[in-house]
């Protein structure tokens, strides 16, 4: 609804816990979808149910998933960051070039993190200093610029020859658990805490809901925006480290299209693109939905184009249903289910 032209959303805080309302949440629907996908996958391929195979499959998409939580914060703000894939490319390329120029590998890794942080910081700084610019415009521009810089550094070449221990990031295991899964779990836990249990998290939701009101309530909107975009860049670099480790090399063209997948995972998780709404649980569920769906379909050799269509359709549904909420709430079925 609009209040003097400012779009706001009712934040319901004083509702009694209702079982019916709990089960109608988008996250619960995601659980159903995830369970459904698993049941389908188990039944279509005997190779799905192998523990080792699933762990290998996780290694394939968890590197992308590391960017989902910072992206979630960005989208909760009501912004977007499409430059993450380019930041990945620039960080990866600089890490490779530095290592091959004689810099010790651990320093090269830190350098990659620094590059990512700077890229994110630049995004945030531009947005904060030039408030008329929207995040879409700024990050589309930096998307082109960052990858362009990577191309200037490396032209069409590749950089690699990393020490053999570097493979551990993308391929290593701690006992039976892939290293990247352990990293993901820890990162998810930290972000879940930050988003749902800290004042910082509450403020992010407030800004996403109504940035003007938040600013006038004393919330440091600019500072929070700057921090979040910097985090987005930092974790793009983290992702780049894992991806480079998985491929054993880095190129200016690496990670093309990754930003779309990350945003898709966030949006599918129920995080609204207009900001201020969403739950970490949803994001986590949607990561596994997209990743395991792609894997399961690929395992039975569904053509790549068909997989694209299926995932795309899932995304459309994810975006359409919350926006159809008013439409749905008028139907008799809904009224019957949520009788006050």
């Amino acid at each position: 609804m609009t209040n003097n032209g400012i779009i706001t959303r009712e934040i319901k805080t004083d509702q009694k816990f209702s079982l019916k309302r709990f089960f109608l949440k988008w996250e619960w629907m995601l659980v159903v979808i995830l369970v459904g996908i698993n049941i389908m996958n188990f039944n279509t391929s005997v190779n799905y149910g192998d523990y080792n195979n699933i762990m290998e499959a996780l290694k394939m998409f968890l590197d992308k998933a590391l960017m989902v939580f910072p992206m979630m914060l960005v989208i909760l703000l009501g912004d977007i960051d499409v430059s993450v894939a380019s930041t990945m490319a620039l960080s990866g390329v600089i890490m490779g070039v530095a290592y091959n120029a004689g810099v010790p590998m651990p320093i090269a890794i830190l350098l990659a993190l620094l590059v990512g942080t700077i890229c994110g910081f630049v995004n945030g700084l531009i947005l904060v200093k030039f408030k008329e610019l929207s995040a879409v415009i700024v990050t589309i521009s930096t998307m082109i610029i960052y990858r362009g810089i990577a191309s200037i550094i490396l032209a069409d070449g590749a950089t690699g020859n990393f020490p053999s221990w570097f493979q551990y990031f993308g391929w290593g295991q701690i006992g039976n658990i892939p290293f990247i899964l352990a990293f993901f779990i820890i990162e998810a836990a930290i972000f879940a805490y930050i988003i749902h249990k800290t004042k910082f998290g509450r403020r992010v939701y407030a800004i996403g809901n109504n940035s003007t009101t938040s600013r006038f309530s004393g919330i440091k909107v600019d500072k929070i925006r700057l921090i979040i975009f910097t985090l987005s860049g930092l974790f793009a670099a983290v992702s780049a480290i894992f991806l480079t480790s998985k491929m054993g090399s880095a190129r200016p063209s690496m990670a093309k299209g990754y930003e779309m997948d990350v945003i898709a995972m966030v949006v599918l998780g129920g995080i609204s693109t207009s900001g201020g709404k969403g739950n970490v649980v949803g994001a986590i569920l949607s990561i596994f939905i997209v990743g395991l769906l792609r894997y399961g379909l690929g395992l039975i050799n569904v053509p790549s184009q068909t997989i694209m269509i299926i995932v795309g359709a899932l995304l459309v549904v994810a975006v359409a249903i919350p926006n159809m909420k008013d439409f749905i709430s008028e139907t008799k079925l809904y009224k019957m289910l949520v009788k006050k």
Partner: protein
Amino acid sequence: MKKLLALVMAGMLSLTVLTGCTTGTKTTTKDNGTKTETANTKGVYALVAKDVNNPYMKKMYEGFETACKEIGAEPLYKGPDQATPEKQIEIINQLVAQKVALIAIAANDADALEPALKNAMTKGIKVISLDSAVNKNSRMVHIQQADPEKIGRGLVQAAYEMVKGKGGIAILSATAQATNQNLWIKWMKQEISENADKYKDTPLVKVAYGDDDPTKSTNETTALLANPDVKVIIAPTTVGMLAGGKVLQDKKSSVLLTGLGLPSEMAPFIEDGVCPWMYLWNPIDIGYLAAYSGEALIKGTITGKEGDKLTAGKLGEKAVTVAADGGTEIKLGDPFKFDKTNISTWKTVY
């Protein structure tokens, strides 16, 4: 209450993942796991294309499929919707999980697939590359269509003859990291630099990348035409050839075209003179040879080292030789010239 429900949800989630999970000993079977599969003792041979819609890749698969049927193996065609190495890594992983017998891959990047392919090889899968090679550590043997040196030099010499020694040469390539492209371009540049006198009026003006995407290739060609120095375009990629030919024909340009094109696609352009002649080899034969090479590796007839010999069905005896990158390869033959005299015969073949 909420927390209890959350815990119950998490528990149910884990339960669905664990049901059906088989850990511990698992005998290695050669089936690809689908319930609709008929019993096949020879295993699944998978061809991984650069991208799934590429017509050249599909032609290779035709030969691959024919050979698999002769051998008694089950053929499988896979490819990403976009020509990136990241997506090929996902596909390789899925094939490893399916326990295929052979992976024959046309690589989008020579080095980026190394960890994934090495992983496949440690699991007992035979790995070969075709069309666009992976580096020597990532494969057992590469199926080489024709000598890259002959291709590179031959194309430049053809371009020189077409413009009668006067006019700039431009190259319309595929993706910047495709191994085969870079190798051919390297030989093209070397032909020019080693014979600087001969080529002094036909310099290399520009190398453009069409990414094997029809739209981008069309745009790059149009951009090349805007350059008055360009008098002939070499497109060592069938997608680039088709896009370039269309642009030149539509604009009735005097710029000429040569390169590596599919006869079925390029027939109209050869017939009307936009492309006086071009080269290729039979991609169907490459796929065919790849499947037989894979079978030889699986049976143990060859191990991929220099000197090994195998019989590739109707192609006869082939030998494993040393490749330019230090690994080994099996050569199909020499490039074949298509011009007005023979295009009508070949355009129906492939």
